[in-house]
């Protein structure tokens, strides 16, 4: 029996059934993004707090749009304009938000574990929109949806993740998710960003420090964003990174012919990825963005709308309910 999730804090603790359910629920919402009138009444009267304690544009807009398209009102909270700057603790900040009675909170925070910390103190659902270097579960889910669509199924692919794995929450969520579906995952990047212990994070992981070896036979290539603010730790010249690890057209030819390329964005063209690859046929980068909306709508529908798992799907309703 599938249990409704109280929160979405990470992928690690989800099982295959739960993941598949979320992906299936996102399916009609994918289709919905093509409707001329993109507004449902499903969450009308509900309020979603969107609390970003760390700057972000894409994920924030994606969640805000997802909430709006479900008919919910949003309460935006951003660290730059907040009382955090005045020294308020996280507990006090989220309790203040909670006192305004939102029905759920989407949060991003630079501290790993902050969403779990908040979830244990509030009675409303918490959706993790990225915490520190821990997890970014909605990214993992939207990547999975993209792979499933493009490749026809999610199970059993050879996946290569390229970049700064150590500091990547995107990598962690993807590793947890894909390994649950039998992927053989290769982690590749500069040695100091791919610590050996990472191989034990999930089953069927392997570490490779050579991009040619890592790409050989790959079905899916995930390119991580080089966080330029991390290049100083340790100091690594961009040229070094490009020489060793940039995904170029030539290198991509080592992967399978039908391999797809994912990137969580925003891309540093010419650094971690060559423009020709980013814009090439194998790239699924823009689908990822659209799928992000579908995944986030599905999650808000279930967590904030408290929809039972067997409820009829709102995107199947007529969509002239716009208000």
């Amino acid at each position: 029996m599938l249990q409704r999730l109280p929160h979405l804090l990470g992928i690690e603790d989800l099982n295959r059934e739960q993941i598949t359910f979320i992906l299936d629920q996102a399916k009609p919402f994918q289709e919905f993004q093509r409707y001329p009138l993109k507004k449902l009444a499903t969450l009308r009267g509900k309020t979603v707090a969107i609390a970003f304690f760390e700057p972000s544009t894409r994920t924030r807009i994606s969640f805000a749009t997802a909430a709006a398209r479900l008919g919910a009102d949003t309460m935006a909270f951003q660290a730059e304009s907040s009382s955090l700057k005045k020294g308020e603790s996280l507990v006090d900040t989220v309790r203040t938000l909670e006192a305004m009675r939102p029905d759920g909170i989407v949060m991003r925070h630079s501290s790993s574990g902050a969403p779990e910390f908040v979830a244990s103190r509030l009675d409303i659902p918490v959706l993790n929109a990225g915490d520190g270097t821990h997890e970014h579960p909605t990214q993992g889910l939207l990547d999975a949806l993209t792979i499933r669509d493009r490749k026809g199924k999610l199970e059993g692919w050879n996946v290569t993740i390229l970049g700064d794995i150590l500091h990547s929450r995107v990598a962690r969520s993807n590793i947890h998710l894909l390994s649950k579906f039998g992927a053989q995952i290769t982690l590749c990047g500069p040695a100091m960003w791919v610590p050996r212990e990472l191989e034990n994070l999930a089953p069927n992981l392997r570490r490779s420090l050579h991009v040619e070896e890592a790409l050989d036979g790959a079905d899916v290539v995930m390119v991580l964003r080089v966080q330029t603010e991390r290049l100083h730790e340790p100091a690594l010249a961009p040229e070094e990174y490009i020489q060793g690890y940039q995904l170029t057209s030539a290198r991509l030819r080592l992967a399978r012919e039908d391999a797809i390329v994912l990137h969580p964005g925003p891309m540093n063209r010419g650094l971690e990825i060559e423009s020709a690859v980013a814009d090439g046929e194998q790239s699924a980068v823009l689908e990822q963005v659209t799928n992000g909306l579908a995944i986030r709508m599905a999650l808000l529908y279930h967590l904030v709308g408290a929809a039972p798992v067997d409820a009829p799907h709102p995107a199947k309703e007529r969509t002239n309910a716009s208000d």
Partner: protein
Amino acid sequence: MLLIKNGRVLDPAANTDEVRDVLLHGELISGVGANLSGDGAEIFDASGMIVAPGFIDLHCHLREPGQELSETIETGTRSAARGGFTAVCCMPNTQPVNDNASVTRGIVERAAASGSVRVWPIGAASMGSKGEALAEIAAMKSAGIVAVSDDGKPVANSRLMRQVMDYCDSLGLPVIDHCEDASLFAGGVMREGLQSLKLGLKGIPAQCESICVGRDVAVAQLTGARLHIAHMSTRGSLDYVRWAKKQGLRVTCEVTPHHFTLTDEDVRYDTRYKMNPPLASREDREALIEGLADGSIDAIATDHAPHHAASKDVEFDRAPFGIIGFETALALGLTELVIEGRVSLMRLVELFTTGPARVLGMERKISPGEPADLTIFSTEHEWTYNAADSPSKSRNTPFDGRSFRGAPMATIVAGRVVYRR
């Protein structure tokens, strides 16, 4: 007069383990033997209990002066008494730092006025523990310090460390170092390993500690001074200490109950598991237990580090390091070491008494003429630790709610019962 009847007297100094009576007269022990009669003495029936020399804690933070929201000498020593400690050594990282005689005197006076147990201050090694100029060590010694340490801010400069050791040796004081290499520490919040990778928390490699232990051992070799390694947590560090001892260097070390009980696998997003040094690997824990058993480790010390609730109720990476530890130390020793069959009861008592005493250049024994400091405990008493009942001002402990077999039953300082269960 107080007559402790029929207790099992365990005295590591004399290696005695016999049922005996102990008679206390004023602040001293006046007799030890079978069927002692103390005319008019108050009787304490210790049948079925262990009577040990008074426990010494080499490492704690009492937060006074300056951080009284977290702890005071009064509340901290009451908690210490509940844990069976008769003397506690408080680290100098107060506000202001205990780097001069007037702060030391203030602590000694507050302890005399409000302390339940003896308070032996540890002075800073450098001014403000900034690692630049020597603190007023000789003056602090006259005021009552028993050792020197820049705990929490290890002396990074090897030349200064050499000077501290030379100078302290001339004054007969041990130098205690919190070993940590600042550049390897690099803002880490837990032990580096699979768990830190999983949680996405910045890791501190084990070598962050051992590299500094190695350096300190080399400086101890250079100076011949007494060096004591605080809250040692890794196998690598222990290897250096073993080597030093083999060379005949005057190097000692201590381990905390949480490091011989928990590992990094226990860490969650719960700031009660955040301490420095961080909880180490399973292999490290195993090595520490071996060291406690075979004598390479000299003492168990709590590193009692109170933090008021609000300061710990934050994101993991923003919380201060440290947990409280007086009241669970003995019970953890009994549970994790003695009941598990890893360490004998006599050896455990040694780690709380003669072991730490030797580090400070003192003796600890149960014989006539000695100070009447005794710890009476049970190895059978079953109880559940409830941090909310603690006299400490802080509650930051991962052992809240844990059930134990074995507990302090009475703590006697200078002939006075300061705690009785």
